[in-house]
């Protein structure tokens, strides 16, 4: 299901620029490339990068921590999710950096509001109407790098004064597995709709829609993203959205599938970028983390801190950053979540400023006005 919604959902997109290949007249002033991947729905950071060295890990995580015995390691204390094979290889090569126990300044647990804060760069939901990624590019006296959203409409993080285009193939769109699950719940109490819907799902089952399709879609998305950034006319800043991370029940299966697709997308992106990979920075983040302990439905609920990833040839990789807060009950935020000890805003500001050789303090002011954000240092190579 990865990407299907945002990348392949184009049938209704007739009024958008999305149906025509985007116009990219302006020549790019830089070879540097920035990809921001927004993982919507709150990814469980403790599954992406499991703190296997924490003494409380096994007891707190239960079933969710069982698959990490032979998973690829990231340093002594952490292990990548077993499906993240490409990421683990990038880490080993020094092209992937992880930051754990990190969160935006938002401390409630609403997806909408959290995504709004994460994308707008404001101090509270709906305070700002533009996004930090767009504002970051608006440097005085400089032509901004060409920016594009791989979506049918431009996501908030990329909206603002800098001109941005969007692109999505106009395939017949299919709703995500996650949306379909939620529709099932929505119709549960409605006799007519419930009957029709169950019958529709059965038919769909028969016609076949399996994980291979998700994977193929993910690889295609990665290839497409790379092709949009190729050459002088290609985009230098690209935003990708991936939905379907809200794992309230049966998390293990859902994340296996989602992360396999995510890993395939990163792999396809790396392959597709070729020699440009050396100049590429990928930032991957989500609106918040999830509860440390599984719930009775074998999933997790909305939490606070999670993990963010930086990938690409630009990245000073091979390290897991963060001030580890611990998983014991007494160490949890509000007794349930991984405690945030670092700021996503600082990570974004430091990484973006260095990638485009901006003055970090000024970039931070543009990106996060009204906040005292200290840009992180040394996230990128040399």
């Amino acid at each position, binding site marked *: 299901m990865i990407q299907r919604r945002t990348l392949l959902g184009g*049938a*209704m997109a007739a009024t958008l620029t999305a149906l025509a290949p985007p116009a990219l007249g302006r020549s790019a002033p830089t070879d540097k490339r920035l990809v921001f991947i927004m993982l*919507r729905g709150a990814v469980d950071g403790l599954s992406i990068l499991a703190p296997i060295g924490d003494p409380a890990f096994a007891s707190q995580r239960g079933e969710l921590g069982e698959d990490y015995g032979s998973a690829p390691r990231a340093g002594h204390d952490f292990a990548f999710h077993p499906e993240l094979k490409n990421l683990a290889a990038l880490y080993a090569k020094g092209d992937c950096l992880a930051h754990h126990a990190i969160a935006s300044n938002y401390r409630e647990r609403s997806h*909408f509001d959290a995504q709004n804060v994460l994308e707008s760069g404001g101090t509270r939901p709906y305070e700002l*109407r533009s996004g930090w990624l767009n504002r970051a590019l608006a440097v005085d006296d400089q032509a901004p790098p060409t920016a594009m959203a791989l979506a049918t409409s431009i996501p908030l993080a990329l909206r603002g004064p800098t001109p941005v285009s969007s692109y999505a193939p106009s395939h017949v769109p*299919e709703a995500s597995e996650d949306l379909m699950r939620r529709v099932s719940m*929505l119709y549960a109490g409605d006799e007519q709709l419930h009957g029709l819907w169950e019958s529709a799902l059965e038919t769909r089952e028969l016609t076949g829609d399996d994980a291979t399709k998700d994977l193929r879609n993910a690889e295609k998305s990665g290839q497409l993203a790379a092709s949009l950034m190729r050459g002088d006319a290609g985009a230098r800043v690209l935003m990708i959205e991936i*939905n379907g*991370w809200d794992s309230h029940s049966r998390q293990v299966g859902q994340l296996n599938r989602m992360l396999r697709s995510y890993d395939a997308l990163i792999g396809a992106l790396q392959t597709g970028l070729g020699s440009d990979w050396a100049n590429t920075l990928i930032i991957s983040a989500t609106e918040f983390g999830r509860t440390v302990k599984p719930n009775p439905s074998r999933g997790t609920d909305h939490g606070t801190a999670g993990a963010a990833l930086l990938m690409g040839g630009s990245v000073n990789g091979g390290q897991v950053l963060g001030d580890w807060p611990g998983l014991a009950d007494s160490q949890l935020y509000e007794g349930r979540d991984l405690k945030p000890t670092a700021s996503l805003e600082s990570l974004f500001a430091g990484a973006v400023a260095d990638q485009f050789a901006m003055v970090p303090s000024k970039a931070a002011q543009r990106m996060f006005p009204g906040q005292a954000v200290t840009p992180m240092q040394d996230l990128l190579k040399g």
Partner: protein
Amino acid sequence: MNGIEIAHHRFGYGPRANAPLGGDPRQLLRAQLDNFDPMPTPLKSFSSSARAVEEYFEHRRKLGQLRGMQDAEEKTRLARRARGDVRAQQVAARAEVAARSDTPFAERLVHFWTNHFAVSAANNKVRDLTASHEFERIRPRIMGSFADLLESAALTPAMLVYLDQFNAFGPASVAMQRRVARGRAKGGSQVNENLAREILELHTLGVNGGYDQADIIELAKALTGWSIKTNSNPRGAQLFGDGSAFFAVRHEPGARQVMGRRYSADGADQARRILRDLATHPATAKHIATKLARHFTADMPAPSLIAILEQAFLTSGGDLPTVYQALIGARESWVSRPRKFRTPWEWLIAIHRGTGATIPARRQFTNLLRDFGQPAWEPPSPAGFDDIASAWAGPDALMRRVNAANAYSNRAGNMDARALAQQWFPHSLSNATSTAIARAESPQQGIALLLVSPEMMRR
């Protein structure tokens, strides 16, 4: 639903974006009957009915020349026209008018009547005539008498072509005699019954309306001569403003007897006079009352509501606003529980109206309607699209709606589904829906769930 929700959802196309619901529900609907605009600006740019008929013949002539054609540009233009781009624009304009209208109840009535006087663009000859059939011949007549509407809508170029009336000859007509004498026709007593049958069965009396085969044949004979303006019209042709025509030489001579009444021979007016009498017949009153009640309230409407509308129709001599007023006034119209499944068209227009999203003047929109099984102006038969949900609200259609809602939600930008849900359904929003929306993993997903919610599916 409470009264104001019913006024918007059951009788209109849902609330407009950022327009909180308020006011007296019945007054709201009554005002719309007075304020209806028969020719809003977006519809003005298309060819008139008469022009569409001319274009039809020009197009056919050009298509005939297309094979040996050198002018690539002209060829492309003609080919595009053949692909139906013009019609996609017409459908988009129709949808745009409905989605932005101040009088959505009246727009619903327009679309109801177009479906009643159904013609199908799936028929190549009719394709370019469907828009003016509705815009020019139906829209201006829906606030008058049913008799005027019937004469206007049953004798349009589109209908005359669709039901093969345009090339019908009276067996004893001058033109037919001449054709037989020249060996170009066999002669005999056969007459094309198509339009006559549908007028009796579908447009007026209804299937058990008390007519028999003799009535059909008599009406069919009275209708002979009604045709469309061509490049070479026979001598004595009467040409009407909408591109229809009456060719007296094709008309069956003599008086006619329909439903027990005698109609003397007076050319084009013979059929018109029969239609006027059919329009006020008690069987017609019952037929129209039943269809209106079914369309607005329930697949199986309350007999008491049908009776009220029937009575209003009869006592007013088929004055349509009187019937609409009766519909607004009837207690049965305001049953709180929604009982109608929104048609694909109603659902899509409600989405555009409620979100403010513009309607693409391209084939994506018409193709979407096609996917849902109700392509605009292409009903499967002269009976129009079925107005009973089981005919089209199947599992696959529901899956398609979920997929479409998903695609729409990706374009919804920064809209907050929680606020929209409150605005659209201030009194009837269910816990199940508001919970599903609140728990959505993204604003977009919240919108998608709202668009497929039970509240949005029914009215």
